[in-house]
């Protein structure tokens, strides 16, 4: 039995060491630098204590990035889940060529976020504007991504376009686990479609709902590539996400230590949200 136990340690320790060296150790270094004034490449740096953190809480650019990121994440999560649930129900209805349609809806998931962003960037400036003009819609006749007040809608749109792929497929597989007899039984009771959905469908796919919320939320909170390809955080800082602020401020702005402090706070915020979600998931696991 001891030998068996030793084998388990052998299985994990090399990976643990590698993970520590290439992930945890650099992260700890990042935390360490957040207490210095290192600019990223100078040969010397000094300790500044909590100064970076002190200035962080006074920096409205940081507040702005948090506001955008959360607004974006919550909205994207809701829209993606509503749309993908609708699409999944459509795909689950008795339709022809279901596999073909399923394949099409999943397609965006295999494409690079960066390239998808570049394509939409072009569409927003050269195609959607023409539609806007022809339709006489003022809000669309100029590039949505160039507007201080509307650019975030454009970013949400593209995130939704790509994000519904995975969630649709997951909801569909959830719906397929529901036996059709359940619906037949409720049909006899005279339940209408709306009641049917809330009484039967939704409770049965609730686990999928949790997973989809977590996945969509996590991706949206980390949004980076999409911002780079669509707006680069602009106009002004209207669409600057937290990751984008850390990257541009830390590297282009030469304030590595300061943005490391920002990352540490960001990690704490995300960790708190995730712990709550994982607890929820685990409870679900034991329920099943």
């Amino acid at each position, binding site marked *: 039995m001891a*030998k068996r136990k030793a084998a388990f340690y052998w299985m994990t320790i090399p990976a643990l060491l590698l993970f520590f060296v*290439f992930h945890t150790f650099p992260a700890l270094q990042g935390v360490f630098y957040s207490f210095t004034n290192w600019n990223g490449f100078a040969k010397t740096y000094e300790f500044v204590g909590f100064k970076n953190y002190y200035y962080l809480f006074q920096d409205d650019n940081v507040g702005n990035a948090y506001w955008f990121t959360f607004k974006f994440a919550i909205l994207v999560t809701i829209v993606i889940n509503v749309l993908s649930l609708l699409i999944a129900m459509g795909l689950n209805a*008795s339709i022809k060529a279901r596999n073909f349609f399923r394949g099409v*809806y999943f397609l965006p998931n295999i494409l690079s976020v960066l390239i998808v962003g570049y394509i939409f960037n072009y569409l927003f400036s050269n195609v959607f504007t023409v539609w806007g003009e022809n339709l006489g819609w003022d809000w669309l006749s100029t590039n949505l991504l160039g507007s201080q007040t509307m650019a975030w809608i454009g970013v949400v749109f593209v995130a939704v376009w790509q994000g519904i792929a995975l969630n649709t497929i997951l909801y569909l597989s959830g719906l397929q686990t529901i036996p*059709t007899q359940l619906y037949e039984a409720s049909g006899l009771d005279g339940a209408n479609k709306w009641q049917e959905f809330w009484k039967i469908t939704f409770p049965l796919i609730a686990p999928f709902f949790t997973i989809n919320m977590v996945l969509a939320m996590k991706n949206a909170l980390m949004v980076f590539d999409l911002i780079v390809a669509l707006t680069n955080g602009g106009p002004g800082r209207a669409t600057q996400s*937290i990751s984008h602020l850390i990257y541009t401020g*830390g590297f282009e702005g030469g304030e590595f230590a300061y943005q490391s402090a920002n990352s540490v706070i960001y990690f704490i915020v995300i960790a708190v949200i995730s712990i709550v979600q994982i607890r929820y998931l685990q409870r679900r696991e034991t329920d099943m």
Partner: protein
Amino acid sequence: MKSRKRTNWVAMILIALGTVFILFPLYMAVTIALKNQNDMLNSIFGLPTNLRFENFAKAIEMTNFFQALGNSAIVTISTVVLTILSNSLVAYAVARNMGKSKFFKGLYFYFISAMFIPFPIIMLPIVKLTASFGMTNLFGLIILHTVYGLAFNVFIYVGYIRSIPIDLEEAATVDGTGTFGTFVRIIFPLMAPINATVGILICLSTYNDFLLPLVIISDQSQYTLPLVQYVFQGQFNTEFNLAFASYLLAMLPMVVIYLFAQKWIINGVTQGAVK
């Protein structure tokens, strides 16, 4: 169970309309890539008057496409193979011991919490580290992708392994098979569905990643496909047709694989997340 229902035409039409929403941007990308500058000025939407495959030829030449494709293929394939072999082993040990050992339970949460560390914080330190190990090349990239995948993969593997009954292994242990042997002969074959899931997800994320190669790779001849798109974004400038031809080329290998293995890929992805 017989379900010989009639086709629900309302749902069918709505679903078909929805696919237009998905396919339209891709249709635009293809037509733009095939047009010349004049076609573009006349009508953005119309089909090209004469197909300009030269755009693709020129994009291939400009971006040194085949070299980048080779680099992407080496990194993606190696990462997938290494990930499946190594991460499943780690997850097995964790899954079978986390109930009774604090060490493994701690390990599980350690890996999971690492999922939420923002990448920029480790970016500069990791650059320094890989440089001191002489790993600023494709090899380093493969190792980093494999190691970073551990966090998420352990999470999905563990869920799956816990659903495999432990009796099988106990029988094997009684037969005198070692722990490694048990894993190789009994567990690993049973993990085929979840290996497919992890393989597909890692394949997609590695192939499409661009930030890590951007900072890790020093030698321009080792650039991967997305990185090359990023490089040439500046150089294409006014030539949208070339840019789009290049985007399509970069997406093509994955799309072709998807066309042939669509059902398998979708099932694979669902399998993992559901567990």
